[in-house]
């Protein structure tokens, strides 16, 4: 059968995709009929059909293992296979979060050690592994900001300053935490507009939420002054650590004036993204925020590891302790690289991005012509003027076998094309990508149609998103055939 069929299309009554044991105890009386389900219309497929179906689907998907994936802001680096093996040790997977801590000392020790490693890597004072993704780490951080100010009887700080280059999660999180959001503009160099920051920073501001390097891929050289300005007015500096890959093993957030930062283990620390998750978003904070950290933290008392709840904790973020399976892989990554290896990561990532910048800046407009960090943001406005939107360029890249970079973000760059090559791509791959980008730039002049109709070689071509949103088809439905 040709794709795309769906599970109901291959379902046939009487099939099953796995075998189950017989009942080995005397049956109990079943509950009253009216409590029981009379219909449960799940598909019925054999194991082989199931394998063929999902294998076929996997082949319609592009991952880091398939090829170059320069999706800006997402740090799509290679995920070492043997880290997956370690995470699958039964001593890590088949353990219950509520079993006695003395029977899970290995897991607690790993978490304790990871807390310490991340504290050192960020130069902060304390780390919580509880957040299950970056956005939840942001949520925890801003709840801590709120709790910190409230603990000092300061209830008037209701604003969070967010740069215009920020990830969407930053304002969304501030809003979830009950804050009002004020947007700080960038200046012509791509740095934070200091004059505007000065005028906006006052006693009503709880924190400045800052990504460094910014989503423009630029390190703001005013960072120390920014921190001082915020602190002088009694605010806190919160860091979105999504772009830590550019500073790993070289620069510490703690030195730069941050009070609290959130990390993304599924970006910087090489755990796979899983097609959208699971992630892990630890937060690292200065010692004066330690009392507000989420519950629980892992502590070591005379060689015995246990969980503890900080005295003024913002509370629990989930039913357990964070995404342990992801932590194992991140831990393996740090231990396999060491300090020198981490430095090689950031230097490699920054070298790759600057190499792309130099090689492509003649072909694509570079809005900020300065040294970039781990990613480079171009503008497709020259191509746009000739009739090719950045979306067309992205779709054309698919024809050449590359996953497109992030497009239309950050919002401050017209026709933004945000390329993050990472340190795990070879010069050969980068050169092939450069050649392709140049070829596409030529096509904009010579064969615009090829761009407008791209992609041509994918399993589907451009999809009708408008109809998808106006007439939502969000599931298949199979109703019971049974009478009544």
């Amino acid at each position, binding site marked *: 059968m040709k794709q795309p069929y769906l*599970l109901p299309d291959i379902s046939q009554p009487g099939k099953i*995709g*796995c075998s*189950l044991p017989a009942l080995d105890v005397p049956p109990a009386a079943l509950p009253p009929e009216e409590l029981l*389900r009379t219909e*449960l219309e*799940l*598909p019925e497929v054999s194991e082989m059909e199931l394998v063929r179906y*999902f294998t076929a*689907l996997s082949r*319609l998907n592009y*991952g*880091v293992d398939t090829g170059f*994936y320069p999706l800006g802001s997402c740090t799509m680096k*290679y995920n070492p296979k*043997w880290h997956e093996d*370690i995470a699958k040790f*039964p*001593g890590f*997977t*088949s*353990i*219950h*979060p509520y079993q*006695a801590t003395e029977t*899970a*000392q290995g*897991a607690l020790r790993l978490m304790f050690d990871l807390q310490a490693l991340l504290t050192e*890597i960020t130069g902060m004072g304390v780390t919580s592994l509880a957040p*299950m*993704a970056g956005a*939840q780490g942001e949520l925890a951080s801003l709840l801590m900001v709120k709790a910190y100010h409230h603990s000092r009887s300061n209830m008037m700080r209701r604003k969070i300053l967010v740069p215009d280059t920020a990830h*969407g999660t930053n304002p*969304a999180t501030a*809003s979830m935490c009950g804050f009002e959001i004020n947007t700080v503009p960038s200046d012509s160099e791509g740095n934070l507009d200091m004059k505007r920051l000065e005028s906006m920073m006052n006693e009503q501001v709880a924190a400045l939420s800052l990504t460094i390097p910014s989503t423009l891929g630029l390190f703001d050289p005013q960072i120390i002054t920014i921190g001082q300005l915020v602190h002088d007015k009694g605010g806190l500096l919160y860091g979105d650590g999504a772009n830590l890959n550019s500073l790993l093993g070289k620069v510490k957030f703690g*030195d730069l004036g941050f009070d609290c930062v959130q990390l993304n283990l599924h970006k910087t620390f090489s755990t796979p*993204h*899983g*097609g*959208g*998750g*699971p992630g892990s978003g630890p937060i690292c904070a200065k010692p004066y925020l330690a009392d507000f950290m989420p519950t629980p933290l892992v502590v070591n008392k005379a060689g015995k590891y246990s969980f503890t709840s900080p005295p003024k904790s913002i*509370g*629990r973020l989930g039913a*357990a302790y964070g995404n342990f399976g992801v932590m194992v892989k991140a831990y*393996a990554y740090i*231990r*396999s*690289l060491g300090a020198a290896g981490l430095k090689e990561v950031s*230097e490699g990532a920054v*070298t790759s991005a*600057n*190499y792309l*910048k*130099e090689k492509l800046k003649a072909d694509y407009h570079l809005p900020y012509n300065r040294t970039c960090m781990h990613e480079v943001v171009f503008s497709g406005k020259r191509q746009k003027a000739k009739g090719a939107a950045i979306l067309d360029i992205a779709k054309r890249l698919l024809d050449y076998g590359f996953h497109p970079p992030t497009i239309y973000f950050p919002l401050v760059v017209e026709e933004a094309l945000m390329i993050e090559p990472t340190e795990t791509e070879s*010069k050969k791959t*980068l050169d092939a990508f450069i050649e392709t980008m140049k070829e596409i730039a030529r096509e904009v002049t010579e064969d615009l149609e090829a761009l407008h109709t791209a992609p041509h070689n994918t399993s*589907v071509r451009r*999809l009708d998103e408008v109809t998808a949103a106006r007439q939502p088809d969000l*599931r298949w439905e199979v109703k019971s055939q049974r009478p009544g």
Partner: protein
Amino acid sequence: MPLPYFPNTEADRAAMLQDIGVSSADELFQDVPAKFNNVPFKLPSPLSELELKRELSELAVLNANSDEHACFLGGGYYRHFIPGVIGHLTGRSEFYTAYTPYQAEASQGMLQSIYEYQSLVCQLTGMGISNAGMYDGSTATAEAAMMARRITGKEEVTVLASVNPTYQRVLETYLSGQDIHLTRLESTRDSLAPESACLVIQQPNFFGCLENVETYSRQAHDAGARLVVIADPVFLGMYQSPAACGADIIVAEGQALGSPANFGGPGLGILTCRQEYLRQMPGRIVGRTVDVDGRPGYVLTIATREQHIRREQATSNICTNEALVALAATVYLAALGKSGLRRVAELCYHKAHYAAEGIRRLNGFSLVFPEPFFKEFVVRCPQAPDEINRALFQEKIIGGLDISHLRDNALLLCVTEMNTRQEIDKLVQILGGL
């Protein structure tokens, strides 16, 4: 020694730096204040694959795992059978090394899998629509409560006292952000405040008992509130869904559907609701559409609710979710199908009742709550549950959840299809011999 993660040779690197026009990579860090660049990092020396695997396998064996122990522990995370086929399919690296499927044409596999996921969990819960998943059952509950607030415009959330206490803690954390008041309801006898946006209940509840969903549904709806039900997805394989009894939003922890407990993460927050609440849903949603040639395909849709489009107006800040765990749940539900899930649920039911009956007959033990229950039940023990768990552990049994802080000497036990008759008999025998 070169490290395997870095594909470039010294010569490659030198050539790249030359083309950039610098003599070292460090020169590219010129915007970093010099004083804070190249600071020392005190980290352990790097280890090779062989060394680190050895070290971590030694750490792993310090954990008592449920492959080598009989396990009667539940309380929100459950040990159910995981068909081998799941790992082989979620292990396809085209799935697990992909990012969120923003580029639809290169992500049809994940997008279609999520569409299957949304369909399957809707079939299971009986609700109209599902999103692509949340972090875990507890945060799905918190997001459901915030949804109810947006739907009703009311400022309070009510939770039934029999809901998993940890879930209640997570609700507190999430609601504190927007200063939403959380109140507790002890039973059907109490009335719901008119300010309440929703009533949150759990089916079966934290103590394993079945709630009368219809009664709570009436109570919630009479007060103009919505009913949020936290359900056990395996329970739904056998019992009528709360959807049939008036639930407006059904959430669940999806770990039980094909994933190991993993020390509590990653899990999967299932969130399903009535179709009319679509625009208030948090998180990603996949829709089916057609391409320019009329071929069916899948895209992320209704994104105007989400943070990357709506920023501070978004329904939630969630971005990364638990896509791979959702894929495991998708394969699980398809592998078991209608008869398999029912069978798993019935195995749990019969074995749990067999265990409860055996323990109830023991001197000094009793069941704290009357029937009906599904796979979990609370026993009152003649001594501290903590001591009992220690004694069981000596015999390679991971006992129940000590809830003596909630009820005197109470132990919450869970029995699933994974527990053999032999294990159950041994449990009863040890308890009887204490």
